């Protein structure tokens, strides 16, 4: 059996689109704006996810992987001495992993909490002890060029003094509460691992914004030496932060290191940065839901627009359908013709939408717009990426949906009686 070729179908379909230009244009614009909205929102969320990921890995200094003794995260808070890595374990693990080619940094960490006082008033603090050099290493690569140019992300500039272990960085709220200024003195008080009270003098090196209103009045970064001294935990650490050369290797390296450490006799658990960053997971989940919602609305608009447009086209071209059927076009050919027309309309609409999205994205990215996200203590720049994966997925899906939306009208056209169609006015 002979069939109309795909090339001829495309030619006829393209000509068909030019038949009623105004209607084709309205449908095309509905598709274009819908698609551009999806591409822009996907690009925005992609940027947010990327920013949050970097914020977690570098800003919060979670690194890519965190290694701790099994049970440390749950039971360790009540019995830190038992679940803390010993100095021997820290040294052995460091030696074991130092030649791993994808590990850029292995930093012992020690968390602590206690009271901080300026002599007149006291308040609680939560601190993270880390080697000053590790802060520098962790903070490298934390910002994109665009983010760096924005002048925001002050918290990424927090550093510790490698020469003086008593110099600490305090969150802005804490500094304000204690009326401290750079170079000012305070006293920190905490329990040692054996339960003895221990106090040390500290000097304020600089203040920083945690980026989170909930922690901006209690968080502190101290040198690992100060933390160990305060807890009387020489050489020990509650976790080891691992920075990799590529975030995409996170899971592979987790499995590899887990196996290597198990083989060496260490009963440790390794978490990735996503396991430890609840905020990232919550925001990701929320944006995914909003994306799904917008995506559903746009798809519905596309389906309705295309189905409506093709329905009207079929009615208007009834006599033409009768003529084509009379001169040899099969029912399948009629369906192919109208669904191809719809597919072309959808794809041209998506390409137009992509161009619109690229222009809008460019405009937004050079406009230096900033906003303060919920639960954030500072503004961040509004930047939009091009999320190629989701843009392509949406492109293909809308092409398929747009084609299928024309199927019912096309089928109706194909089933028309030839004589009735020829007599249609």
């Amino acid at each position: 059996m002979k069939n109309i070729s795909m090339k001829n179908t495309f030619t006829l379909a393209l000509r068909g689109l030019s038949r009623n230009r105004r209607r084709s244009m309205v449908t095309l614009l509905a598709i274009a704006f819908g698609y551009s909205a999806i591409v822009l929102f996907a690009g925005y969320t992609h940027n947010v996810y990327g920013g949050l990921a970097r914020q977690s890995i570098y800003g919060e200094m979670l690194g890519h992987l965190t290694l701790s003794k099994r049970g440390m995260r749950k039971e360790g808070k009540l019995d830190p001495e038992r679940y803390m890595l010993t100095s021997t374990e820290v040294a052995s693990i460091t030696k074991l992993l130092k030649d791993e080619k994808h590990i850029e940094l292995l930093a012992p960490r020690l968390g602590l909490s206690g009271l901080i006082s300026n002599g007149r008033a006291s308040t609680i603090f939560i601190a993270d002890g880390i080697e000053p050099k590790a802060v520098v290493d962790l903070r490298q690569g934390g910002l994109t060029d665009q983010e760096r140019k924005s002048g925001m992300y002050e918290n990424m500039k927090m550093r510790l003094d490698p020469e003086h272990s008593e110099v600490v960085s305090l969150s802005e709220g804490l500094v304000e509460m204690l009326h401290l200024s750079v170079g000012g003195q305070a006293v920190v008080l905490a329990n040692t691992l054996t339960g003895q009270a221990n106090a040390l003098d500290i000097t304020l090196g600089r203040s920083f914004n945690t980026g989170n209103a909930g922690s901006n009045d209690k968080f502190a970064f101290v040198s690992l030496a100060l933390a160990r001294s305060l807890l009387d935990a020489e050489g020990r650490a509650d976790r080891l932060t691992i920075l990799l050369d590529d975030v995409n290797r996170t899971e592979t390296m987790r499995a590899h290191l887990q196996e290597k450490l198990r083989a060496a006799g260490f009963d440790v658990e390794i978490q990735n940065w996503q396991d430890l960053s609840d905020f990232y997971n919550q925001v990701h989940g929320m944006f995914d839901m909003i994306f799904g919602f917008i995506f559903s609305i746009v798809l519905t608009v596309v389906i309705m627009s295309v189905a409506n447009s093709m329905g009207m086209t079929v009615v208007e071209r009834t006599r033409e359908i009768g003529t084509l059927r009379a001169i040899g076009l099969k029912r399948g050919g009629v369906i192919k013709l109208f669904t191809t027309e719809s597919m072309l309309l959808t794809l041209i609409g998506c390409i137009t939408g992509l161009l619109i999205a690229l222009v809008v994205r460019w405009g937004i990215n050079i406009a230096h717009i900033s906003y303060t996200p919920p639960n954030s203590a500072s503004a961040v720049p509004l930047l939009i990426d091009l999320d190629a994966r989701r843009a392509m997925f949406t492109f293909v899906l809308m092409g398929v949906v747009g084609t299928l939306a024309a199927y019912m009208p096309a089928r109706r056209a194909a089933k028309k009686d030839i004589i009735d169609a020829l007599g249609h006015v």
Partner: protein
Amino acid sequence: MNIQPTPILNLRHIRRRFMLGETCIDALQSISLEIHAGEFLAVWGPSGSGKSTLMNIIGLIDTPTEGEVSFDGQDTHLLIDDALTDFRGEKIGFVFQNFNLVPVLSALENVMLPLQIQGVAEHAARERAAATLVDVGLERFRDSLPDKLSGGQRQRVAIARALVVNPRLVIADEPTANLDSENSRMVIDLMREMNRARKVTFVFTTHDPRLLEHVDRKILLRDGNIVSDEVTA
């Protein structure tokens, strides 16, 4: 005119019944008819006599309520829809009263259309369509859209479209109904010329007796019956 004795189309006891609400109408009563290759045949009669119904059945775009149609020896009722469509596309050309050209296609592209539907390669289709447009005297208008052509020119494009597949039979239902008398004469003359030059069988309907002068055979229909079947050539 050398008319072959073997009929290309054989209608046997054709009845076509339509239901209009509760009313039953026999548009064709019981028609038997043979059409031979190379004939130039007119079906004429008053409005409502069943001319168009007969043409639809001859053109295989309608099926009779009773009776059988065979075309080139093939019993057409045995063909499924796709096969019948292929059969029609290869063997029958259509010329419509309203021309029925695709308005967004040029004259040449309209003539190419049946070939493209059959899957003929574009280059070959273009060559054949161009040659057919030359035959109908419209080579200068090959790139014109239908709305830039006169009624007579459009119908000539439609005739070219019908002829481009080298059909065995061309059906023309009231091809001159929308034309003035001069264009009507030109269209009938063109069909006659193509009939002679290409040895293609033409069957057309008309209610204008003046157009019957050059036909080989004229069949008068009235109330769904053949009243007379007159060979004039």
